[in-house]
């Protein structure tokens, strides 16, 4: 008897909050109107932000994707701040991911997260949305010795979400496309005619149609699988799919459809065995464009040299996004979890990662940024001048020649934190029947939209 009435009392106690919250669902929350505004990229001082005191510890997690940078940075840090004990925990890839998801909610974990955006907890945008990271603007605004001038602004702004800078890009890449004047002539395209998003897509499509029966020809050298093509288009074509800030699914009907149809009609060859890479496909006229490069570093330079040595004239331009600007991809980024107790040290370490020593590489020419370009503009220029200058490519003695390449790299109009694997997976799953010809575009698109709607609400 006693337990019954006791239990009833508990239930009614719980009913009240449930009814209340259901009630608040019925009335649209005032927050909805706030979300309609767009967030500015201007850094604003938040008075309520409390700066931590400096401590004497710093914990970092190192694994394959960031160890190149952490080791030298730790050396510099220890010299600058000898009183701080730095603990670098070395982990395997799997351990890293698992530990973050268990430790961060528990208030533990590293003081600074440094990794590709894939490893920021599955979906980097959702992670930013869950308020896990410190707004770095607050730290920078209060620091007289540091500012983000001199860094490539459009790349750095990729880490801004809802007006706050949660993520700091450290390294970025872009997709330079290489072609040759000769093959353009042969196919009847002019150099200018492939420079816009529309015309590039058009040229590639025409090439594929023309050579559909030639068996081994494909407009894009690394576009042999739908996944690869999709990945390139989603990032560099700058398809957002989900607007996280507004919490809505946004697929630009026309441009998305164009891309999907392009992928559908692209020839599906066997998985590439890299015979077409490094310009070989261009030289042998098997490809119209080479899209296998990820930045304009040594691989790119070798390819240019190789093409020149075969007697042809290389031509480079950037993969454009649907607005005809250039989208870069942030390769490695850093963030400071709010639960960290050593935020000051983490911030100091972050500044070292952004400093010339790390961004530019050491005096022996070894670069710490494995795959991409530095975000510090002076380091970027210096490194590219050096790489090009030391190479065998024709024209490398001419500064203007090098400057034209540098301008391409610096002239990024927008940067992206990449497409989360899950979202990419949705597109593949929904669109595969369309690519295989089993279902119509509208059916697949509807199913994609419903998947994305569900996902964004999770």
């Amino acid at each position: 008897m006693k337990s019954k009435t006791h239990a009833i009392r508990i239930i009614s106690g719980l009913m009240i909050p449930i009814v209340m919250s259901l009630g608040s669902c019925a009335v649209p929350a005032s927050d909805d109107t706030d979300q309609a505004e767009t967030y500015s990229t201007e850094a604003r001082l938040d008075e309520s932000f409390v700066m931590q005191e400096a401590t004497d510890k710093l914990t970092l997690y190192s694994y394959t994707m960031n160890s190149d940078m952490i080791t030298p940075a730790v050396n510099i840090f220890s010299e600058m701040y000898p009183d701080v004990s730095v603990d670098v925990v070395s982990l395997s890839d799997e351990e890293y991911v698992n530990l973050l998801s268990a430790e961060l909610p528990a208030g533990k974990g590293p003081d600074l997260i440094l990794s590709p955006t894939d490893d920021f907890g599955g979906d980097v945008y959702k992670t930013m949305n869950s308020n896990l990271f410190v707004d770095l603007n607050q730290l920078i605004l209060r620091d007289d010795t540091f500012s983000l001038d001199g860094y490539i602004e459009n790349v750095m702004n990729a880490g801004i979400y809802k007006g706050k800078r949660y993520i700091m890009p450290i390294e970025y890449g872009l997709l330079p496309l290489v072609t040759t004047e000769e093959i353009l002539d042969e196919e009847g395209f002019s150099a200018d005619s492939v420079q816009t998003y529309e015309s590039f897509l058009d040229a590639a499509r025409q090439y594929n149609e023309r050579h559909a029966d030639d068996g081994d020809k494909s407009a894009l050298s690394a576009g042999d699988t739908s996944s690869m093509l999709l990945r390139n288009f989603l990032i560099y074509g700058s398809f957002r799919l989900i607007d996280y800030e507004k919490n809505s699914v946004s697929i630009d009907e026309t441009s998305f459809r164009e891309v999907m149809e392009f992928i559908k009609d692209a020839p599906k060859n066997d998985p590439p065995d890299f015979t077409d890479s490094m310009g070989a496909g261009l030289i042998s006229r098997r490809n119209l464009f080479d899209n296998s490069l990820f930045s304009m570093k040594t691989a790119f330079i070798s390819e240019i040299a190789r093409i020149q040595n075969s007697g042809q004239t290389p031509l480079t331009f950037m993969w454009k996004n649907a607005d005809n600007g250039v989208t870069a991809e942030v390769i490695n980024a850093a963030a400071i979890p709010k639960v960290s107790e050593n935020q000051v040290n983490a911030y100091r370490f972050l500044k070292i990662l952004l400093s010339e020593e790390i961004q530019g590489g050491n005096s022996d020419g070894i670069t710490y940024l494995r795959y991409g370009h530095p975000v510090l503009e002076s380091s970027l220029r210096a490194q590219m001048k050096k790489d090009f200058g030391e190479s065998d490519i024709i024209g490398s003695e001419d500064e203007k020649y090098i400057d034209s390449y540098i301008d391409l790299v610096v002239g990024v109009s927008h940067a992206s934190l990449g497409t989360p694997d899950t979202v990419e997976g949705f597109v593949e799953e929904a669109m595969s029947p369309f690519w295989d010809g089993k279902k119509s575009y509208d059916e697949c698109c509807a199913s994609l939209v419903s998947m994305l709607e569900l996902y964004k609400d999770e």
Partner: protein
Amino acid sequence: MNKMKTSKLARKESLTGFLFCLPSIIGMLVFFVVPFCLCLYMSFTESTGNGRFMGLKNYAEVLKSAAFRLAAGNTLKFIVIAVPAIILVSLFIALLLYKKLRGYHFFRTLFVFPLVLPTASVVLFFQIIFAETGLLNHVLEFLGITPTEWINSPNAFYVLVILYIWKNSGYNIILSLSALNAIPKSYYEAADIDGASKSVQFFKITFPLIMPYTFFITVISIINSFKSFREAFLLFGSHPNKSIYMLQHFMNNNFQNLNYIRLAVGAIMIFIAIFLLILIMFRLRVKSGDTEL
């Protein structure tokens, strides 16, 4: 004098009982109640770094989420369909086994196998059967029925139900057999003498006497349905077809996305639902005349 003695004895008994339960209670407190309270606390905060009290805002947000509502609906649907189904199937098989025909031991051992198989092997096996080019579709084609997509379609719900029943029947069969064996043979003998038919015996003797165990078996079946998430996850992925997107998917995905607050909110709501469910079952049990608890 006597009264004092008995009440002293009663208190001593009471204390002994409590001491017996103490290790379990302490363990329960440390490893389950305290974490639960932490979870409850976190569900009201803004984010894991920030203890700011959000009131019921988090709950409102989660309830507004279409994903959560879908997950809740699907989980409920699954429990309402799969749990009675498995109880009936297990009871049916247990009744067959109860006859103790020859080979009874062999069959009983057989039904335990699905429980025993490691999850990964089970999933592999189900993938092979239900894949688009899998065994089931081949059989259907052979029979002249058009094969259909099983895994990435609304049919996934039935695949999951079948998986759940297949895997957990062994559990329930063991328990049902124990329940059946608890009924004294003398009752049936008396009924035979009175000339009652088998079906009357079933409804008047068997059925009522296994009722107390049914509460217990139902609770366990529901727990197992929550556990079946692991197989569902391995077989259908973390974002499966809408028909089987359940609360565990919602929670697990938020766990992967480092959004523990949302997970905590979802968990508390599940807790409330379970609380109410068990309460109702408790009262039904008391009503059915069961003397214990």
